[in-house]
């Protein structure tokens, strides 16, 4: 089948505008998240349940830090800290692991309303723009072929890529404008935005991308609240991990390390 060449005017008035508009909206969204993060004030602790959640989080952080950096402590100091956490009767982790499992519904509703509002705002800015762009593209630019994908595809993709074009035998490689929209969306205008905005917006971009993936999967998931159901199990796991740590004080090895790095330095 011979190649179809497409009119110049489609390129000028459809292809390039879609790309430019989507790119602009992406940059605008980046600026918007930056602005909203500047406006965010620190959240006050309001309810008692939230206080206990913070305590739990701090306990796990403490035990994880101990497990990770145990080499910096001399022997007796490490043993004392470990006993403080893991002792059979009075250790913090044992006491915490005996708490009852939290009801998932309960723990979700007792969250800080400000955090909910924040997540809602982020979700909104993501979904609204996506829906808007989709509507715009499908309203104005439907019904014709806009380009060609360079790789061969099976017939199964025909409905997705050629929406609105009713020519039956047309090669699946010729795509309509909605598929350009999808290619741009998934392909990562975010990455290019990331290049432009520099390194300090890494966290924001990760958030929106993570959100988008979650929206795609359709789950009302909570990204940062990992231990809804059973904090007791988490504490038991932490405790077994701490008790299994083989402790060596790094200072004992320091002479050997010094010799090694001096040798390496002198050789260069």
């Amino acid at each position: 089948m011979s190649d179809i060449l497409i009119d110049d005017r489609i390129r000028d008035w459809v292809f390039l505008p879609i790309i430019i508009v989507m790119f602009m909206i992406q940059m605008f969204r980046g600026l918007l998240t930056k602005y909203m993060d500047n406006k965010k004030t620190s959240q006050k602790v309001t309810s008692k349940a939230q206080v206990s959640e913070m305590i739990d989080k701090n306990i796990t952080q403490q035990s994880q830090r101990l497990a990770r950096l145990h080499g910096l402590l001399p022997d007796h100091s490490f043993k004392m800290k470990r006993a403080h956490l893991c002792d059979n009767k009075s250790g913090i982790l044992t006491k915490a692991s005996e708490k009852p499992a939290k009801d998932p519904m309960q723990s979700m509703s007792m969250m800080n309303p400000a955090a909910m509002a924040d997540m809602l705002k982020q979700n909104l800015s993501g979904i609204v723009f996506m829906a808007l762009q989709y509507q715009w593209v499908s309203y104005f630019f439907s019904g014709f072929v806009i380009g060609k994908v360079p790789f061969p595809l099976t017939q199964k993709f025909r409905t997705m890529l050629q929406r609105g074009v009713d020519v039956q035998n047309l090669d699946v490689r010729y795509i309509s404008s909605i598929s350009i929209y999808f290619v741009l969306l998934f392909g990562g205008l975010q990455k290019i935005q990331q290049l432009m905005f520099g390194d300090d917006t890494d966290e924001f971009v990760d958030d929106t991308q993570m959100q988008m993936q979650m929206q795609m999967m359709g789950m009302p998931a909570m990204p940062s609240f990992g231990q809804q159901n059973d904090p007791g199990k988490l504490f038991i796991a932490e405790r077994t991990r701490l008790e299994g740590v083989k402790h060596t004080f790094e200072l004992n090895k320091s002479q050997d390390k010094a010799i090694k790095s001096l040798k390496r330095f002198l050789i260069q």
Partner: protein
Amino acid sequence: MEEPKVELDDLEVNQERLKQNTNQLKNLRVYGSLNAGMIAGILGMDGWIGMGIYVVIFLIVSACLAIKMNFRVKEYFKSSYDAYYSGIGTDLLLFLMIWVIFHNLVNIL
């Protein structure tokens, strides 16, 4: 290319510098896949040859990185797998997008 040194010795991985290195690597890879997409699109490559170009340019970027580091990977990254091969799938979609755009702009439209 600024790549501060990292000394890997059990506890002593300097987190800040490692993070900076990986960010630079990420940026480099994005540039690499942008270029690969442009080359594949402008030259009108089709199908699997285009994918081959992506892999080839990815490996060229890794090779340049190795030369710049004087082959001493351990001082800059956690492992050589990390530095050379790990991110090949993440920028693939970006490459596809740029490939489709440039292929259309140059050859068809």
